[in-house]
């Protein structure tokens, strides 16, 4: 727990040209907490997550990643500590599941990559020996593979945007167990959802309005 990363954001606003997505959103997520970002469709949940993980810059406001000692992590270093599952982020359709994970393990410079990739695939219920390209996967299998990719490097911060979408009941049950286990292990979890059951995982909440 002591080694985790605290995310603090304040007065965050985002506008695309003249379209205001949200104004002045603030919150924080500490290690071992699940911050649930809720709000109706179009309220900017995914945009807020993209800002918090560094893919988008806010029009106004600030986001800070704070280490246990209080020192701030530079923006360029954020990505090493993040695992992200989001509908707007796809994996490579022309590769199979294991090839996808091998690629992400290699660009992250992970040691023991092969064992980790196989282990993550087995954990999410995908067969590492299956050579089917992702293009031939069902939406549920793709979601499982995205989750495997997010856990591959054992990140200290997890951003989960509608993580249960397209999963079957077994998959949802497994997902809940995994998120709660990560929370117990001191991972900082930021969750964007409208699912009542997923909202219950949240220990803090940020509600966005249209």
């Amino acid at each position, binding site marked *: 727990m002591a080694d985790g990363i605290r995310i603090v954001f304040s007065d965050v606003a985002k506008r695309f040209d003249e379209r205001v997505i949200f104004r002045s959103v603030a919150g924080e997520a500490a290690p071992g907490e699940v911050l649930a970002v809720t709000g109706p469709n179009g309220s900017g949940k995914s945009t807020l997550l*993209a800002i918090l993980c*560094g*893919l988008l810059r806010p029009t106004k406001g600030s986001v800070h990643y704070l280490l246990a000692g209080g020192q701030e992590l530079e923006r360029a270093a954020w990505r090493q500590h993040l695992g*992200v599952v989001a509908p707007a982020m796809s*994996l*490579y359709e022309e*590769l199979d599941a294991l090839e996808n994970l091998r*690629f992400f393990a290699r660009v*992250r*410079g992970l040691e023991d990559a092969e064992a980790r990739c196989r282990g993550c695939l087995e954990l999410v219920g995908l067969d590492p020996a299956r050579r089917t390209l992702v293009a031939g996967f069902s939406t549920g299998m793709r979601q499982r593979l995205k989750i495997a990719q997010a856990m591959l490097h054992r990140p200290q911060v997890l951003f989960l945007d509608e993580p249960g979408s397209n999963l079957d009941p077994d998959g949802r049950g497994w997902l809940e167990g995994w998120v709660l286990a990560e929370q117990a292990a001191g991972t900082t979890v930021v969750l964007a959802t409208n699912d009542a059951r997923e909202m219950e995982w949240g220990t803090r909440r940020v509600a966005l309005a249209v």
Partner: protein
Amino acid sequence: MWRWLSEAWAVAAKDLRTEFRTRVALSSLGLFALTTLIAVAYSVGPFRISAEDRPFLLAVLLWIVVFFAALAGLDRTFVKEEESHTAPLLRLSASPHVVWAGKLVFNMVLLALLLAVIVPLYCVLMGYRIELVGAFVVLLAAGGFTLAVVSTIVAAIISRAQGRGALFPVLALPLLLALLVFLIQGTTATAEGSVEAVDASLRAVVSLGGAMAVVSAMLFPLVWND
């Protein structure tokens, strides 16, 4: 350093693997180059240009075929990442310099394949006789590298813009004009057997390639992250 190279190679290997499975860029490059080459071979042929003009005019035609074929396919490396929504995860997983180097290697491999097929075919079909073959190969390598460097950074710039299909040649061509001139001069000199002229052109191409590579490497993180 080894780790950085290994990560960059992972990006290039992933791109090569997906490209050899889909052949989108290879088809664009290859078909454009072949159709242009056949059109040039039929319309001009090996005998319609006087012996005196051959070294220069055939060099011009060769590089026009290569440049426009390159412009038809080398933007795919970044455009595909954006269109298939794989770019965000790549941004979160790899450092910008690793992505830049990996994409550059991928474009260099595509160009090497293009040059390996098109140049010998062109020389045979057009009866283009090169006196300084070794220097010509070095010129092709240096020219291919510089062309790949410029294509990679321009492809990254246009990949998030609307109307990117048209933007790529529009943005790339002004940056490539100087290279085109040096390569035509150098190729003419290799056909004429003028060592001094080849040397001057080669130096210019290598300098341009080096400068472009440094500027691209510095510029890429800004382009890729925002």
